């Protein structure tokens, strides 16, 4: 959608800067999550360390986005789609920061796992990661392109991630009973699964905010129609 120029050029600049920071933050979060998961799958401690280090920059961007958002609200008192864009950007940054925290937790637990012999059950985590990251990418893409249909389609996909997490947890708990020697390892995998499940929750939040930004519709806390 082409938005006509604002009568105040500084407003357009401020809004563009806010949006760019959100997109930058989402790129960094995606990279952090990818590094943490590769650190797990490839047993690479360096990647895990990078994922943990990324968090600082993401935290700073969250602070910057909040500061810029408040400044825009204060200076320009935006309304209608402008107001929704600012509010959504600030909510997005909060979700992205929490996703990055999940990536950090995954990286920390991956480093612990890497200290012990590999577990075949790590493969239970892979489909969860694929589901979570695809939800994440689509939700941010929907926000960036103001694509309401894509954003709506993200929300029901969270159910599959929840199901995958439940199934993986069940299997890992069974393995703990049969192989108590690796109890800590299985526990770490359960926690990593939970982190990915939360990444999906945040992606859902972002998708809901994307719908609000583009269509002024609040779709939170509505019954979800499951998709296959």
């Amino acid at each position, binding site marked *: 959608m082409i*938005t*006509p120029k*604002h*009568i105040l050029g500084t*407003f357009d600049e401020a809004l563009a800067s806010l949006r760019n920071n959100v997109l930058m933050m989402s790129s960094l979060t995606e990279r952090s999550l990818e590094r943490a998961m590769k650190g797990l799958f490839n047993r690479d401690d360096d990647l895990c360390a990078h994922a943990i280090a990324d968090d600082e920059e993401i935290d700073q961007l969250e602070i910057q986005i909040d500061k810029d958002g408040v400044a825009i609200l204060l200076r320009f008192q935006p*309304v*209608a*789609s402008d107001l*929704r864009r600012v509010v959504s950007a600030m909510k997005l940054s909060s979700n992205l920061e929490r996703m990055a925290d999940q990536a950090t937790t995954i990286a920390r637990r991956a480093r612990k796992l890497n200290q012990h012999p590999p577990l075949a059950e790590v493969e239970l985590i892979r489909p969860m990661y694929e589901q979570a990251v695809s939800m994440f990418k689509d939700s941010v893409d929907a926000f960036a392109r103001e694509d309401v249909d894509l954003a709506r389609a993200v929300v029901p996909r969270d159910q599959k991630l929840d199901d995958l997490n439940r199934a993986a947890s069940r299997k890992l708990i069974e393995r703990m009973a049969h192989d108590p020697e690796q109890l800590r390892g299985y526990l770490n995998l359960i926690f990593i699964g939970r982190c990915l499940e939360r990444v999906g929750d945040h992606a859902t939040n972002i998708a809901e905010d994307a719908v609000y930004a583009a269509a002024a519709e609040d779709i939170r806390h509505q019954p979800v129609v499951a998709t296959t």
Partner: protein
Amino acid sequence: MVNLIMASPDPAVVEHVERPAELSPTTEPAPPLTFQVKNVSIWYGEKRAIDDVTLDIASNAVTAIIGPSGCGKSTFLRCLNRMHELVPKTRVEGRVLLQGEDLYSSTVDPAIVRRRVGMVFQKSNPFPTMSIGENVIIGLRLNGVRNQKFLNERLEKSLRMAALWDEVKDDLHKSGTSLSGGQQQRLCIARALAVEPEVLLMDEPCSALDPIATAKIEELIYELKAQYTIVTVTHNMQQAGRISDFTAFLYMGRLIEFGSTTKIFTNPSQKQTEDYITGRFG
């Protein structure tokens, strides 16, 4: 919310008008209406200032009229109490119903209309030769009221309603122009209230006031709507957002969109409205 998309002579302009009902009519009855404006057009000589405007104004609510300069906001406001007729070569088509009664019927006296529909202007205009007290009750005096006890009671009541009594009760004999700008504007509101109108029209009532005086007027508007129907013209979007329940956007004499203020300022239906309120107009 009931949406009425009205046919427009110009297919490029689709007027979007929402009836002033906060809830669906299936769950909540529509609020009572003070004005029903039906297909009103107003000409100043050859120039059409208002073009086929239809809208309902809810009772005991604040309706804000917004739009760029020259769009017909003040003309529209003034047609609600026939004040625009004071401009020569003015012509009106359509109907304006006040509580169901046609204001433009040949049997209706414009002076009575203006008593029922009071008005406050952009610049406060107390009568400079009169005291504060006289300014308030002049309308009653001109209507033949002579009972001093009644006048005194109405004076206090009006000043209290205009949130000015405590500030001027010991200075009622002083000139109206001795007051500050904000106080003068509230004095004019008290003067409008003294004749007990049904409606209060306000034409940019805060545009000449500082933020504190503006806040007092805005607070007053909020309190007055319990007893009066208020229609206000404002250039200040934030003010419209703060004080009004319904907002009408006029452009080049046409009603582009009308609806609840929350809807207009978060998700307007018309692109022209969106462009105007977000500052992307023209």
